[in-house]
């Protein structure tokens, strides 16, 4: 379903993704783990046509994200790591916007939006502006939005960041259901190791732009002779804390209030 060979992305001299290869089978749940700045989001951006690779090849559902962007885009859905909702629209409008953009047929649209908003417990607040929502509510809305159209491949970039255990559990149950019923392939990143251990069939660990290990959680533990995935992760990636670059977004947030 996903086939990546020798994928590389350079930003000037910095190699964000350095010659990685992996593949994900149809119907598989695949976790992509790594410390901050390891290259996870950059990889997802290249897989989802947002960024052009410097080298290597990608195949998504049999299509190339550079040459056949439209076919690739029809194959996947994505929940981004950072917010991507329109604050000036209501929760319902955000959902409808997405449904129309993804050409979900009218008959299905209404029912599914209602079902999903109830599922993330936002149905009562569907007509409120997103800008009045808390961080957790926005996250829930974002996950719900990513599930409106049922794609062949679902990319989830830290989908459960900042959510309480109840909500996380709830969301993963739903995603696992979709995975089983519709054979939806799921590719996700997370910092919660127990989540990866519980949900993912296979796990890849990436660090400094390179994949350092791939396998089931058992295999990774055996390989590193550790007792938990967290220990295995630390054994593979070390214990130094990584810095991520600060963007200009903070400055922008300030500016927007002025306008």
């Amino acid at each position, binding site marked *: 379903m996903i086939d990546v060979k020798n994928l590389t992305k350079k930003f000037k001299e910095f190699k964000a993704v350095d010659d990685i290869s992996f593949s994900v089978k149809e119907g598989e749940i695949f976790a992509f783990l790594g410390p901050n700045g390891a290259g996870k989001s950059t990889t997802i951006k290249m897989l*989802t046509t947002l960024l052009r690779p410097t080298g290597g090849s990608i195949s998504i559902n049999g299509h190339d994200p550079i040459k056949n962007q439209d076919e690739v885009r029809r194959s996947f859905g*994505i929940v981004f790591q950072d917010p991507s909702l329109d604050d000036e629209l209501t929760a319902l409008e955000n959902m409808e916007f997405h449904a129309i953009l993804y050409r979900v047929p009218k008959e299905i649209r209404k029912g599914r939006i209602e079902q999903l908003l109830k599922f993330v417990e936002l149905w009562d607040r569907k007509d409120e502006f997103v800008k009045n929502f808390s961080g957790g509510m926005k996250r829930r809305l974002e996950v719900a939005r990513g599930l409106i159209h049922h794609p062949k491949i679902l990319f989830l970039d830290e989908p459960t960041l900042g959510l309480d255990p109840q909500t996380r559990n709830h969301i993963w149950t739903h995603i696992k259901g979709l995975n089983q019923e519709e054979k939806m392939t799921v590719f996700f990143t997370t910092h919660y190791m127990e989540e990866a251990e519980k949900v993912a069939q296979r796990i890849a660990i990436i660090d400094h732009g390179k994949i350092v290990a791939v396998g089931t959680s058992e295999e990774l533990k055996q390989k590193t002779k550790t007792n938990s995935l967290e220990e295995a992760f630390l054994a593979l990636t070390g214990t130094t804390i990584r810095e991520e670059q600060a963007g200009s977004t903070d400055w922008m947030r300030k500016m927007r209030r002025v306008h």
Partner: protein
Amino acid sequence: MNTIYILWLRQLKRYFRSKSRIIGSLGQPLLFLVALGFGLGPVFQKAGGGNYIEFLVPGVISMGIIFTALFSGIEIIWDRQFGFLKETLVAPTSRLEIMIGRTLGGATVASLQGIIILVLSFLVGFRLENLIILPFALFFIFLIALLFTALGTAIASVLQDMQGFQLIMNFLVMPLFFLSGALFPLEGLPPFLEIIARADPLSYGVDGLRGILANNSHFGLGLDFLILSMITVVILLIGSYLFSKIEI
């Protein structure tokens, strides 16, 4: 088609919801109308220029349009920073559709702004000779709006963040407006200014609108229309190209 419609609708919803933005962006044109219209009116009349308010209104309408239109185009930077652009860019629709939807939305919003200023100008004594000219005026208003929304889109596709915004305002929008003949007649200008004014696309927008609303065109309506639509097409193409190259 649905995609274009929903993107258009989004721009309109955002516009109508930000009441402060609508009102705020009307302040400046109104000030121009009142201060310049009444302040310079007597001098203009004495110099044989006729009714200055009548002369000024098309210029001030254009001003309202280009500010709103450029801003609508530039909003892409906002969407990029706040992540919403990604949401549209990964959707299975062509970038051309996205660009068309956004640009039509922005141009509609900017046209509305122009229409509001036209209506407000009745308060300072502006009158239309007859109503038949209204559709032609609206057409020109929309054309100007389209041109500058596309220009905003083109700029926003290249800029990474809003830090360059002030630069654009001071070195692009202000000169485009002040050198367009929105405030002064293009007859008898010093040659260098005449050349600049002729190179400014907004000159043809202002002149066309003035030709329709005040029956006072320097270049002639046909030429205004021709040049304005040609530039609009070119900028739309450039904007679409740059937009299609956006990487996040």
